[in-house]
C-alpha cells in the first residue's frame, strides 16, 4: 500500500511532471472560465478579415478569413478538446475495465470469446474506424466521443485482463472465495483496487490521444458543426496558409501544448505510482 504523502512527494520530484501540471491547470482554467471572462462569440465577425495578431484590444490573436476572433476560438476550442478527451476516455475505461475484469476473472471460454472481440476492435485501423463511425452517425460531440471510446477500450481491456489473470491466483483472492464472498464483490472491492494505478496511467495517455484524434476529425471537416474546435480552426486557416500562417500555427501550438502537458503528467504519474528505479 502506497502512503498518500509519499506518492505526492514522488510526483513533485519530477520537474516535467510539475511543469505539465501547471500548463494543464492553466488550460483547464481557461476552458472553464475563459468564455465568461472573454465573452466574444467565436463565430461572430468582430474585425476585418485576416488581421494579424496585434495583442491589442480587438482580436488580440488576429482574425480569420471571416473576421472571426482567433483568441475566442482558442478558448472555446479548449473546452471542446477537454470535454471530448475526458468523456471518450471515461467511456473507454468503463468498457475496457468491465471486459478485462470479466475475461481475466472467469478465464476459459469467456476469456477466449472476449479476447477475440477485443482483437477485432484492435485490428480495424483506429482512425479510419472513427471516421466511418462519425460519418455514418453524423458528427456531434456525443458521437465523436462515443466513436473514440469504441476504438480505444481494447488497450484498457488487455491491461486489466493481464492484472486480473495474475491477481486472481493470489492467496488473498483465494481466501475471499473460501469465505464465500460474492463474485462481483471480489472483483470490485478486492481485485480492481489493486490494478487502478496502471489504469490511471493508461487513461492519461488515452486523453492525449483522444484530443489528437478529435483534432484530426475536425480538421477533416468531421467535427461537431455547432462548436468551434482547434482542429476546425486549422482546417479553416489552411485555405490562407501561404499568407496568414498564424491561423494554422496558433491552434496547432494549443493542441501540442495540451497533449504535451498531459503526457508529462502521465509520465510523472507512472513514475510515482510504480516506483521501479
Amino acid at each position, binding site marked *: 500500500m502506497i502512503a498518500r504523502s509519499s506518492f505526492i512527494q514522488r510526483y513533485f520530484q519530477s520537474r516535467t511532471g510539475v511543469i505539465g501540471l501547471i500548463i494543464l491547470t492553466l488550460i483547464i482554467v481557461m476552458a472553464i472560465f475563459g468564455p465568461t471572462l472573454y465573452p466574444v462569440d467565436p463565430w461572430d465577425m468582430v474585425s476585418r478579415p485576416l488581421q494579424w495578431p496585434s495583442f491589442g484590444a480587438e482580436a488580440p490573436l488576429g482574425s480569420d478569413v471571416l473576421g472571426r476572433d482567433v483568441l475566442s476560438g482558442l478558448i472555446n476550442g479548449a473546452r471542446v478538446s477537454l470535454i471530448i478527451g475526458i468523456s471518450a476516455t471515461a467511456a473507454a475505461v468503463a468498457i475496457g475495465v468491465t471486459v478485462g475484469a470479466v475475461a481475466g476473472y472467469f478465464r476459459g471460454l469467456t476469456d477466449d470469446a472476449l479476447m477475440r472481440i477485443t482483437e477485432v476492435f484492435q485490428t480495424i485501423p483506429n482512425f479510419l474506424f472513427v*471516421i466511418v463511425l462519425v460519418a455514418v452517425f453524423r458528427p456531434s460531440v456525443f458521437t465523436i466521443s462515443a466513436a473514440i471510446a469504441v476504438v480505444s477500450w481494447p488497450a484498457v481491456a488487455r491491461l486489466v485482463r493481464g492484472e486480473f489473470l495474475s491477481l486472481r491466483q493470489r492467496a488473498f483472492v483465494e481466501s475471499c472465495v473460501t469465505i464465500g464472498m460474492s463474485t462481483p464483490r471480489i472483483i470490485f472491492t478486492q481485485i480492481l483496487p489493486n490494478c487502478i494505478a496502471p489504469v490511471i496511467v493508461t487513461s492519461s495517455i488515452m486523453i492525449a490521444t483522444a484530443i489528437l484524434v478529435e483534432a484530426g476529425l475536425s480538421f477533416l471537416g468531421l467535427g461537431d458543426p455547432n462548436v468551434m474546435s482547434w482542429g476546425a480552426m486549422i482546417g479553416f486557416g489552411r485555405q490562407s496558409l501561404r499568407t496568414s500562417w498564424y491561423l494554422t500555427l496558433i491552434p496547432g501550438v494549443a493542441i501540442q501544448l495540451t497533449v504535451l502537458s498531459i503526457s508529462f503528467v502521465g509520465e510523472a504519474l507512472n513514475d510515482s505510482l510504480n516506483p521501479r528505479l
Partner: protein
Amino acid sequence: MMKRYLVRRAGQAVVVLILIACVNFLILKLAPGDLVDVLAGESGGSDPHYLHLLREQYGLDRPLYVQLFQYLSNLVQLDLGYSFRFNMPVRDLILMRLPATLLLMFSSLAIALLGGITFGVAAARAPRSLRDSLISTTALLAYSTPLFWAGLMLIILFSVKFGVLPSGGMATVDGPKDIVSIIVDVSRHLVLPSITLALFYMATYTRLMRASMLDIYNMDFVRTAKAKGLTPHQVAYRHVVPNSILPLISLFGVQLGSVLGGSVVVEVVFGWPGLGSLAFDALFQRDVNLLMGILFLSSVMVILVNLAIDLLYSWLDPRIEVGA
C-alpha cells in the same frame, strides 16, 4: 509444433476477419437511410412503388441474416460492392489507389525505423546526459504533434519560405517522361509527406529503442562482453543494439493500422493520391460502400502483416515459443 501453431493463428485470423465483416455489416445497417434512400435523394425523390422495386432488386427487403450471408459471401469473392459516385467496382478503385499509399507508408516507416534506432541508440548510450534529455524531450514533443499540423508547418517552411520542395501531389503535371526523371520527381514529392507521417512513429521508436537498450545493458552477457575487454562501441553495436531491435518489430505490426489511419490526414494535406484521399472523397460524397470497402481491406492488410510478423519474430528469435 510450428505447423500446428500456424494453423491455429490462421484460424484465429479468419475468425477475427469474419467478425470484422459482421461489424461492417452492422454499421451499414445502423446507418440512417439505406442505399435506396441515397439513390432516391440523388434523383430528387421518387414514388414509393419504384423505391420498393429498387429495394427488392438490391435484396434490401429480405431478412437480415440472408443479407448478412449475402454480404459475407460477396466479401469472400472479394466483391466489395459498387461505387455509384465513381461508377466503378470498389475493389478496382481501391487497387488503383493502393500503390501510392503503400509507397508513402513504407517510406515513412523506413524513415521512422532508421531515425528511431539512431536517436534511441544515441540517447541510451549516455543516459541522463544533455544529449539524452534533448532527444527524449524532442521525441515527446513529436509525440504530441498532430500529424496534419506538422505537415502544414513543413509546407510553410519548405515550400512557401524556402521553396525547395513541392507542397502537394505525387508528380509534376506535364513533367518529363523518361523513367529516371519520373523517379526523381516522385521522390521529391514524397519527401514532405513521408517525413510528416514518420515523425510520430519515429518518436515512439526512439523511446522504445532507448528503453529496450537500457534493459539489455543490465544483462549478464553484456557484462561478459565488457569484462572480456571490448570497447564501449563494440559492446553497444555488436551486443546491445541487435538484441534491442526485436521489440521494435512487434511494435511495427501493432502500429500498421494506426499508420494507415494517419495516412488519411497526411494524404489530404499533401494531396497524395492514395487510399486516404480516396476515403476522404468517399466521405464527402457519402459513398458508404466505398468507405466500408477501404475499412475492410485495411483490416485485412493489418491481419496479414501481423501474421507475417509473428512468423518473422519466431524465425529471428528461436527462443520465443510460438505456442505461447
